[in-house]
C-alpha cells in the first residue's frame, strides 16, 4: 500500500486536534469565525469604494488608542491600526473606521508588529526535510508559547549551502490552527559559508562570470520575438536569483574554538575581519548586499559593510575573546549592533547558543536564554549602545529585511500582513507581556485565556 502523503497525515492529525480542541472548550463561548470575540458587533459591509477600488474586505478590526510602534523605530502615540481580513489597511491618527468594525481598545497599551525571528526551529515546523509543507503542524502547542513571547514568524531553513549558495527556506508564520496561513514567503534566503580557499573562490568567481554572461544573453534577447531563452548554466540558478534580488544570501563564518567550558584549540578569531572581508568580496561579486550571519568582528569595519548594502545578524551576548596583542581588531563587542546601526546597517538579533538556550531549543531552555523572551537579546544590544527606540527593528523591520520578507512582515504599514501584538508596556521591558496577538488578521493568542502567563498580574 502506498504510504499516506505526509501532508495528509498532518491534515488528519489537525482535524483530530480541531475536534478535540472544540470539545475541550465547548463550555467557553465560541470565538466567531472572523476572529472577533463573542458579543462583538457583527461587522457589516465596508463603506463604498471611493477613488480607487478598495479590496473587498469581509471583516474589519480597529485597534485604537495604543502607542503604535511601526517596527522601523517610529512610535505613533494614541494611534489606530486598522486590520481588514488578513492585511493591515491603515495606521494613523485620522483613519476612517468602517462601520461595523470590531473595535479593540488599546488605550494605555503598546501596539507593535509581531516579532520576526531569524534563527528558530520548532513552532509547528518540521525539524528536517526539504519541504516545510510536509511537516507543518498548525496545532503544535509550542506555537502558542511562541505567540506568548510575541513571535509571529520565523525563518525555517534546511540544509544550507557550503562553498556556494544553497538550501531551502520558508518564512513560517505562527498562524495557530491555519495550515495554509503558516506558509509565508518561500525560498527567500539561501546560504553559504566562508572562508573559501583559493580554489573555492576561483570556482565561485567562475560561476558568477557564467551567471553574468547568461544575464547578458537574456538582455540581448529582450524584445526579440520567437527566440527561446537559453537555459541557465549548471549551478548558477541560486546565484542568478541572488543577483536579481529574488533571494537574499546569508553568509556564515567559521566558528571560534574553545568555548565556555575551556580547553580545546588555541585562540581563534572566528567570523573575524578576514572572513567578513571575503563575504564583502562575495557581495561585490554578486552586486547585492548579503547577510552576515552572526559575525564576531563586524564592529571593526562597519563602513565596509555599509558600503555593500549588507546586513547583520548579531548575538550581543556571545563572546569571542580577542587575540592577545590584536585587541583592536579581534574579538566580539556588545556594542556591535549599535556601531553598525550608526552607519545604517540593518541589524537583527538572535538568541545565543549554549547548552540551555539558543534557537534550536525553542521555548524549552532557561528563561532569558531561549525564545520565551526574544526581546532580551534586543535589550543587550541596547545595553551596548543601540538606541532603545531603534532596537525594536532588530525584531521587526530589520529582521524581516534579513529574511527577505519585508514586503509581508516586520512593520505596521498598509498592505502588510496583519501580524500585530498588543503589549502591556514598552516591548523591551522585562516585565512586559503580550496581551493579544493577531496573525494574518486572526486573533490567535490572548494572555487571559491561555494558561502560560495569565497568573502573572500586576
Amino acid at each position, binding site marked *: 500500500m502506498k504510504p499516506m502523503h505526509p501532508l495528509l497525515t498532518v491534515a488528519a492529525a489537525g482535524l483530530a486536534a480541531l475536534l478535540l480542541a472544540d470539545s475541550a472548550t465547548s463550555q467557553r463561548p465560541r470565538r466567531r469565525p472572523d476572529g472577533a470575540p463573542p458579543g462583538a458587533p457583527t461587522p457589516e459591509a465596508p463603506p463604498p469604494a471611493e477613488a480607487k477600488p478598495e479590496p473587498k474586505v469581509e471583516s474589519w478590526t480597529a485597534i485604537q488608542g495604543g502607542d503604535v510602534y511601526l517596527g522601523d523605530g517610529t512610535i505613533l502615540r494614541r494611534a489606530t491600526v486598522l486590520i481588514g481580513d488578513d492585511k493591515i489597511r491603515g495606521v494613523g491618527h485620522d483613519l476612517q473606521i468602517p462601520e461595523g468594525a470590531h473595535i479593540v481598545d488599546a488605550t494605555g497599551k503598546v501596539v507593535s508588529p509581531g516579532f520576526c525571528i531569524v534563527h528558530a526551529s520548532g513552532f509547528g515546523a518540521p525539524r528536517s526535510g526539504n519541504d516545510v509543507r510536509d511537516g507543518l503542524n498548525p496545532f503544535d502547542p509550542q506555537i502558542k508559547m511562541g505567540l506568548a513571547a510575541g513571535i509571529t514568524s520565523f525563518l525555517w531553513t534546511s540544509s544550507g549551502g557550503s562553498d556556494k549558495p544553497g538550501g531551502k527556506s520558508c518564512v513560517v508564520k505562527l498562524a495557530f490552527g491555519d495550515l495554509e496561513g503558516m506558509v509565508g514567503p518561500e525560498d527567500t534566503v539561501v546560504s553559504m559559508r566562508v572562508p573559501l580557499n583559493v580554489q573555492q573562490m576561483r570556482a565561485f568567481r567562475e560561476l558568477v562570470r557564467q551567471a553574468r554572461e547568461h544575464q547578458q544573453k537574456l538582455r540581448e534577447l529582450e524584445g526579440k520575438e520567437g527566440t527561446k531563452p537559453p537555459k541557465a548554466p549548471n549551478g548558477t540558478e541560486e546565484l542568478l536569483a541572488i543577483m536579481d534580488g529574488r533571494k537574499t544570501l546569508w553568509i556564515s563564518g567559521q566558528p571560534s574554538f574553545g568555548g565556555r567550558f575551556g580547553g580545546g584549540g588555541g585562540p581563534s578569531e572566528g567570523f573575524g575581519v578576514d572572513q567578513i572581508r571575503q563575504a564583502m568580496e562575495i557581495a561585490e561579486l554578486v552586486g547585492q548586499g548579503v547577510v552576515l550571519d552572526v559575525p564576531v568582528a563586524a564592529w571593526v569595519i562597519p563602513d565596509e559593510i555599509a558600503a555593500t548594502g549588507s546586513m547583520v545578524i548579531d548575538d550581543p551576548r556571545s563572546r569571542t575573546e580577542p587575540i592577545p596583542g590584536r585587541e583592536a581588531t579581534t574579538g566580539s563587542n556588545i556594542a556591535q549592533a549599535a556601531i553598525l546601526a550608526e552607519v545604517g546597517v540593518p541589524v537583527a538579533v538572535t538568541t545565543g547558543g549554549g547548552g540551555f538556550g539558543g534557537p534550536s531549543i525553542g521555548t524549552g531552555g532557561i*528563561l532569558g536564554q531561549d525564545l520565551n*523572551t526574544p526581546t*532580551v537579546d534586543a535589550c543587550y544590544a541596547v545595553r551596548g549602545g543601540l538606541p532603545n527606540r531603534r532596537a525594536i527593528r532588530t525584531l521587526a523591520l530589520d529582521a524581516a529585511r534579513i529574511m527577505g520578507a519585508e514586503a509581508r512582515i516586520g512593520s505596521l504599514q498598509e498592505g502588510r500582513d496583519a501580524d500585530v501584538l498588543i503589549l502591556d508596556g514598552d516591548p523591551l521591558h522585562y516585565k512586559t507581556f503580550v496581551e493579544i496577538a493577531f496573525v494574518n488578521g486572526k486573533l490567535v493568542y490572548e494572555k487571559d485565556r491561555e494558561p502560560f502567563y495569565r497568573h502573572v498580574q500586576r
Partner: protein
Amino acid sequence: MNPTDTSMPMRTALALGALLAAAAPVAAQERSIDIYYGSKPTEYQVAITGPATVESPSYAFRCARILPVTSPPIENGILLTRNGRIVAFGPADEVAIPDGYEVVDLGDRWCIPGLVELHCHVAGRGFDLNDTVHQTNPEMRTIDLVTMDHEALRNALAGGVTTTLFIPGSGSNMGGFGTLTKTWGRTPEEALIRFPGCLKIAQAGNPERRSGDLGLTPLGMNEGLRRTLETGREYHLAWEAWQRGEGPKPELKPNLEYLRGLFRHEYPIAVHTQIYQVALQTIRQLRGEFGLWTIIVHGTFDAYRLSEVAVEAGVPVANGPRQYHFDRGSGWGSNSRRESEFVGLAGEWFRGGMHGFTHSQRGVGIDGIAVNTDSPVIAQEQLSLQCAMAVRLGLPDEVGLRAMTINPARFIRIDDRVGSIEVGKDADLAFYSGDPIDPRSFVEATVVNGNIAYRRDPRRPRF
C-alpha cells in the same frame, strides 16, 4: 536619569517606584526567614579568612542615586571609601568631602552594592570542576584554583558581580569545598573572603553520572553522604572532647579537617538540589538529621512546593538559573490552576501559596530568596538577568534587588561585610546607567575593596 523626567518610560517609572519603596514596612506574608546557622562559632578554627583591610585610594563617588538596599534610597548622593571600606554616604549636601579624597563623578548613574553570586564555577580559569576520585570527596577544594587574571572574572565585574562562591561542580555527589572570593584582587589572597565558603553537595540532576556502581541512584548517594558525614561528625566530636579535656588528642586527618568546620557551623553546605522529593531529602537529611547549616542552590522544578518546609527548617533558597517551571499537568502555582503555566520559581518560593496542598504554604519571605547563574551555565555577567526573569514572573522588584545582594550575603553569613551599602562594610559597588534589574542598563564602573576594578569603554564595553 532624572526621576522627574516625564519622558521616562512607564515601566522604568514603576520599577523606580518599587525600588524606592524598598525600605517600606513588609507585609505579613513577606516576613523574613530565620536562617538556621547552628551554634555560632566564636572564632574560625578550621576556616581561614582574607585580610581585614585592603589598601585602596580614598574616593568620593558622586552619583544620581544610591540604593543601599538595607536603607532608603538617596538622591544625588556622595559615597566616601577608604582602605577598602565605606566610610560615609548620604545626600551630597550632607556629606562633606574631606581633604585627600579623589572625587569620581559618575553623573546620572545609580549606585548599588556589588552583586553576590552563590553559585559560581568560574573564579578559576575554565577547568572542569567535576571530579569523583572517591564516592564522596571531602578532601577536595577550589581554593588552589582561584586566579584573578582571566576573562570570566573580568566579565563578572562588567556585570556588577563582586563576590562569588566558587564551588566544585555537581557531577560529583560530594564535590568538595568552595571558596568565597571577591572577583578582583591583586592576589587571590587579597581577594579571599573565607575558605571554606561551603561544602558542595549535589543530590540529583548531575551527580548520577560519575558515581559508578557506588551511588548511581539516590539510595546509594544518600548512603555515601551519610557515611562520610557520620565519620566527619565523629572526628569533630573527638576534637571537641579533647579541647574540653575529656579525651585523648585525636590523630590529625587532613581529609576530614574541613568536615570538622562544617560541624562547628563555621560554614554551610550549599546543596545542588532540585525537584520536590530531592529537596525534601536535602532538608530532612542534611539539615534535619545532621543539624547542618544548609542552603538550597537551584531549587528548581517543583521544589518550590517545599517553601513552608524550608522556612520551618531555616533553609534559604538560591534559585536558578532556570527561573521557571513549565508545569504541564499539575499547575501547582499559587493560584492552583491545573493547567500548563510558567510557574515563576523565585516568586513561588518567596510568596508561598497553595502549591497543591490543602492549605496555603508559607513562603521563605523577603530574606529567604536569592538568584544565581551557575556560571558558566549562564555567563557570570548575566546574574542581574536572572533577577529580571524572576521579577518578570512575579518576584517583587524590591525583593529582586535583595535577591542578588544582601540575601545571598546573609545566607552565607558575610552580610557583615558585603551585600548592602553601610558604613564599615566593604567598598564593593556597582554603578549602573539605570534600573539595575533591567538588562538594558549597563555597568559604568565596578568597585571592589575600594579599588576601581572596572570602567566601561563606550566603544568597546566589556558587557
